[in-house]
C-alpha cells in the first residue's frame, strides 16, 4: 500500500532525526565530561584533596623562661582537659546538658564553646574545659562511653611558679585574638595561632620574645571521610619546641625587691648591672597573679585589676613616668660642667630662696644651705644652687645633657609598653603649647620639676651611666636566647669628661655618706658596700602622668594622691660601682626618708647575696 510505504519512509526519516538528536546529546555529554575531567580536572583534583585531607595542627611546647642561674620562671605544666570532637557528636545540646553539671559550666562557657564549634578550623577539637581537677577528670572519664564526641586530652598550660614576683617582668600568655593573627609578622604561623588552645605572649617578656618562645607548629595530615572520621594518617611532622630564654634576672634578688616594695601602696624599683645593662631585678607594686590569665581570667578578676587605683597591671618601671625631681640634679650638674660656664668650686649662697626677676624660687630648705659649691649642692640637694646653675647655662644645654643620658626617649629595654618620658625644650613648648620658653621654666627644669618626666628605668640607666664612667649601656632582660648569648655591648662612650663625672659622683656619694647629705641617715654601714645616689621628691599636683593617661585611677578617692613621690637613683658600691638602682614610692613623701631605705636594703642585698655574678 502506498500509504503504508509512505508511513515507513516517514518513520525512517523521523527515527533518523531522533537518532541524530541523540547522537548529538551523546556528544554533548562527552564534551561535558571532557570539560569537567580534562579542562577543569586540576581544579577538581585539588578540591578533592581538600575534601580528603585534614590538617591538624600540633602546637609546639612554649619555650621556658629561666633566671640567670637557671631557675625556671615560666614553664609548661601538664593539664588535662575535656575536648569535643564535633564530627562525632550526635546531639550537641543534649551533650552540653550532660557535661554542664559534671564540669560546672557556666553560661559564658557554653557560649564560648558554641562559638568555638562554629569557628573551628578543619577537624580540630574544641576545648570544653581546661585544667580539670582530679574529680572532674574521673567523673568525665567514666562517662565517656555514653557521650560520643567527648574526649579527654592532655595539654600544656603556662605556669609561673613565682607568681606576683615575676608578673611585671614576664607578663602572661593568653588566647589569640583575630587582630593578633592579622598583625602577626610570621605569616606562616596563622594556622598555629588559630589552633584551639594556642596562647601567645600578651605582656612582658612573654610578649617581647613571643616569636622565639612560640616554636614551630607540627602537623598531622590525615585522610578523613565525609563524616570527618579519620581513615588514616598520611604524614606527621613533629612540632619544634619554642626557644628557651635565660634572663639576666636574679630571682632571689627579684623576690627581695618585690617583697621590699610590698609594704608600699604603689611604687617601682629596678636594679641593673652598670657594666652591661643587665637587669637583675625589676619590680612594680602592686603586682598581680599571672596564673589568673592562664585559663582566661574571670570577669570579676579582670574588672578588679583594671579599676584598682594602684594600677596593678601597669609595669611602673617602664610604663610609669614621673617628674624626676632632685634626682635630675647630677645631670644638670654635668650639663653645667660640660658647658664650661660653671666652675665646680665656685660657691653660691643659698638663703633658702632664689630671686629671679619678679619671682621668688624657694629652696626646699627653709633656712637655706648657706654657701655651697657643686659637690655640696648635690649632697644637700640645694635648689638655689641649681636655679642659679640653670640660669647660667640655659635650657638648651640642660635638654642636651638629659637626652645624652637617655631621658625623653625609650631606653630600648626588651619589654613592651615602655614610655619615653619627656625632656622639655624650646621647640617642644612652641609645638605643643604655642608659647615661647620662659627663663623661669629653665630654673624649674634644672631641679627636675616642671614638664620633665622620666621613668624609673630611665633614672636607673642614668645612674648606671654616671657610675660606669659614661658608657651608654642599654638595659635588657634577656641574657641567652636558646643557649646563645643575647647580643650585649658595653655601650658606646658618651663623651663625658671623667673629671666631671668624678665631681658628680663625689656629690652623689656625699648625699648618702656625708653628714650634711640628705640621706645620711639611711647610709650603708658595711665597709666597701657604701652606696651613692641622689634623692628626689617630686611634687605632685595631680596623680602621676601614667595613671592619668591610662585612665585607671579615679582621682576623687585618693586621699594620698596629693602627696609627693619619693624617688631615689643611685649605685653601689661607691668605690667600684657595680649595681645601679632607682626606686620610686608613689605619693610616698620624701625621697630621703621613704625611697632611700628601700634602695639601701636592695643594694645591700645585691652585694651580700651569692650568685649574682
Amino acid at each position, binding site marked *: *500500500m502506498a*500509504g*503504508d510505504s*509512505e*508511513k*515507513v519512509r*516517514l*518513520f*525512517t526519516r*523521523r*527515527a533518523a532525526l*531522533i*537518532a541524530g538528536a*541523540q*547522537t548529538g*546529546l*551523546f556528544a*554533548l*555529554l*562527552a564534551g*561535558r*565530561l*571532557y570539560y*569537567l*575531567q*580534562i579542562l*577543569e*580536572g586540576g*581544579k*577538581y*583534583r585539588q*578540591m*578533592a*584533596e581538600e*575534601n*580528603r585531607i585534614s590538617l591538624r595542627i600540633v602546637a609546639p611546647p612554649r619555650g621556658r623562661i629561666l633566671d640567670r642561674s637557671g631557675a625556671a620562671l615560666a614553664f609548661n605544666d601538664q593539664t588535662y582537659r575535656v575536648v569535643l570532637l564535633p564530627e562525632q557528636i550526635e546531639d550537641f545540646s543534649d551533650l552540653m546538658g550532660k557535661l554542664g553539671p559534671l564540669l560546672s559550666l557556666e553560661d559564658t562557657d557554653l557560649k564560648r564553646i558554641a562559638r568555638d564549634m562554629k569557628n573551628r578550623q578543619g577537624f580540630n577539637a574544641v576545648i570544653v574545659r581546661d585544667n580539670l581537677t582530679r574529680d572532674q577528670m574521673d567523673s568525665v572519664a567514666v562517662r565517656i562511653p555514653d557521650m560520643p564526641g567527648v574526649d579527654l586530652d592532655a595539654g600544656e598550660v603556662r605556669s609561673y611558679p613565682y607568681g606576683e614576683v615575676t608578673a611585671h617582668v614576664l607578663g602572661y600568655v593568653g588566647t589569640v585574638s583575630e587582630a593578633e593573627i592579622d598583625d602577626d609578622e610570621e605569616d606562616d604561623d596563622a594556622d598555629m595561632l588559630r589552633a584551639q588552645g594556642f596562647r601567645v605572649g600578651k605582656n612582658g617578656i612573654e610578649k617581647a620574645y613571643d616569636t622565639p618562645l612560640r616554636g614551630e607548629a607540627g602537623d598531622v595530615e590525615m*585522610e*578523613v*571521610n*565525609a*563524616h570527618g572520621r579519620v*581513615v588514616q594518617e598520611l604524614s606527621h611532622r613533629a612540632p619544634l619546641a619554642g626557644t628557651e630564654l635565660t634572663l639576666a634576672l636574679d630571682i632571689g634578688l627579684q623576690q627581695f625587691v618585690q617583697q621590699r616594695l610590698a609594704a608600699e601602696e604603689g611604687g617601682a624599683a629596678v636594679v641593673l648591672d652598670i657594666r652591661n645593662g643587665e637587669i637583675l631585678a625589676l619590680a612594680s607594686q602592686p603586682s598581680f597573679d599571672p596564673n589568673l590569665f592562664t585559663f582566661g581570667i574571670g570577669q570579676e578578676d579582670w574588672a578588679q585589676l583594671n579599676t584598682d587605683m594602684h594600677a596593678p597591671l601597669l609595669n611602673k618601671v617602664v610604663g610609669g613616668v614621673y617628674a624626676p625631681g632632685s634626682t635630675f640634679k647630677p645631670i644638670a650638674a654635668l650639663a653645667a660642667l660640660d658647658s664650661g660656664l660653671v666652675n665646680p668650686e665656685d660657691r653660691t649662697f643659698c638663703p633658702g630662696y632664689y630671686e629671679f626677676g619678679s619671682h621668688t624660687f624657694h629652696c626646699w630648705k627653709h633656712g637655706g644651705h648657706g654657701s655651697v659649691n657643686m659637690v655640696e649642692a648635690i649632697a644637700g640637694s640645694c635648689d638655689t644652687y641649681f636655679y642659679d646653675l640653670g640660669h647660667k647655662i640655659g635650657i638648651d644645654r640642660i635638654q642636651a645633657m638629659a637626652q645624652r643620658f637617655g631621658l625623653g626617649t625609650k631606653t630600648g629595654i626588651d619589654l613592651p609598653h615602655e614610655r619615653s618620658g619627656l625632656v622639655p625644650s624650646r621647640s617642644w613648648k612652641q609645638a605643643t603649647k604655642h608659647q615661647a620658653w620662659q627663663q623661669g621654666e629653665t630654673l624649674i627644669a634644672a631641679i627636675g620639676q616642671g614638664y620633665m618626666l622620666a621613668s624609673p628605668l630611665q633614672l636607673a640607666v642614668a645612674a648606671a651611666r654616671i657610675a660606669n664612667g659614661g658608657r651608654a649601656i642599654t638595659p635588657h632582660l634577656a641574657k641567652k636566647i636558646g643557649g646563645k648569648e643575647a647580643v650585649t655591648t658595653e655601650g658606646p662612650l658618651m663623651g663625658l669628661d671623667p673629671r666631671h663625672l668624678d665631681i658628680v659622683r663625689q656629690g652623689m656619694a656625699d648625699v648618702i655618706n656625708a653628714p650634711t647629705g640628705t640621706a645620711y641617715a639611711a647610709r650603708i654601714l658595711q665597709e666597701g658596700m657604701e652606696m651613692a645616689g641622689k634623692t628626689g621628691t617630686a611634687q605632685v599636683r595631680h596623680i602621676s602622668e601614667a595613671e592619668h593617661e591610662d585612665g585607671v585611677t579615679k582621682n576623687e578617692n585618693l586621699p594620698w594622691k596629693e602627696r609627693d613621690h619619693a624617688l631615689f637613683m643611685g649605685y653601689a658600691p661607691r668605690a667600684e660601682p657595680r649595681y645601679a638602682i632607682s626606686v620610686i614610692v608613689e605619693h610616698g613623701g620624701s625621697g630621703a626618708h621613704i625611697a632611700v631605705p628601700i634602695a639601701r636594703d636592695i643594694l645591700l642585698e645585691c652585694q651580700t647575696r651569692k650568685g649574682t655574678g
Partner: protein
Amino acid sequence: MSSLSPSDHLTLPARFRRLNGGMIALIVMIGLIGIALLYSAGGKHWTPWAGPQLARFAAGLCLMMALALTDVRVWLRFAYPMYGVMLALLVIVELMGHIGMGAQRWINLGFFVLQPSELMKITLVLALAKYFHGLSPEDITHPMKLIAPAAMVCAPVGLVLLQPNLGTALLLTFASAAVFWAAGVRWWKFALVLALAGLLLPIAWHHLHEYQRARLMTFMNPAADPLGHGYNIMQSKIALGSGGLFGRGFGQGPQSQLQFLPEKHTDFIFVVLAEEFGLVGALFLLFLYFLLIAYGFIIAWTCRNPFGRLAALGLTVSFFLYVFVNVAMVTGTIPVVGIPLPLVSYGGTAMLTLLIGCGVLLSISVHRDMRLSRTGINE
C-alpha cells in the same frame, strides 16, 4: 495488506537463531561494569551491593531471554491489558500513599518490589505502538484520532507527577512524544502542545514541591548553597573532575571511597566510574550505551511491522533518556532528577524493568520480518 501468513510462526530454535547476539553481549558487558562499580563502591566487597546486584542481573537476564523468545504478537495482543493493569496499580499505590503509607509508591511482592511507574515506561510505549499500529496513514492526520493516545499518556504522567516523581514523568512524556513523532504526527501539533506547555509552566512551577524547586534552583547555581542542596552536585563534580583522563584506579577514588559522594551506588554510580577510570572509562561506558541504542534504532528501522517499529523506537528512546538524564544530572548539565543509570545503578526494580524492556526489544528483533495486520494479530 500483503503479509506473511500466520504460518510464518517461528519455531523456538528459529527464534533462538535470530536472537541479536551483539545486543545481548552489550547488555551483559554493561551489567558487569555496573557490578564491578558496585563492588568498588562497597569498598571492594560483594556486600552490600555487588552480590545482590549480580544475582538480580542473572535472574533478570533469564527473564529477558524468556521475553526475547516470546512471540511478538503476545505484546501486541496484551498491550492494552498490560497498560490497563499498570495504570490501575498506579492508581492503587497513589491511593495507598494518601491513606498513610507515606511516600511509598510501590507494592512489595516479596521476591520483587513492584514499582508500577517503572513498568509503565514499557507498557505505555507498547500501548501507544499498538494504537498507532492500528491507524491508517489517513487516520494519523485526523486530530480526533490523537485524543485517545494523548489520554493514554496523560493519565500515567499525571499520576506519576502526583507521587511526585518528576524524572519518570518527563521520561514517560518524552518517550511517548518520540512514538507520536515517529508514527507521523505532524510537527505543528507538537508545536501546539509545546506552546500550551509553555503557558502552563508558571502554573506548574507554582505546584512544584519545595524540594523540586530547590533542585531546579540548585541547578542554576550549585555553589550558592554548597552544604545544602548543592552539596550532592558539587561533590559529584569534584569526583568526576578529579578523575582526569585515566582516573584514580579501581577502588581508589577518594570521593567515592570516603563517602563524600552521595548516592554513589544508585543515581551517582556513573561518578564512581568517572572518578576511578577517568574520562577514558566514562566515555567507554557511554560508547557501549551508544552502541546498544544504535542496535535499538537498527531494530526499529529493519522491523517490517509498525507495532515493532514504534515499540522498538519508544523503548530505545526510553533507554536513551535513562542514560542521558542520569549522566547529564551527575555532570551538573541538567538539574538533579532521580533517574538511575540503566543496568548499572543498584536497584532491582529498575534493573528488571530495563531487562524486560530489552527482552521485548529483542523479541521485536527476533520477529522483525513478521508482518502483522493493522487490525489484528492474524490476517
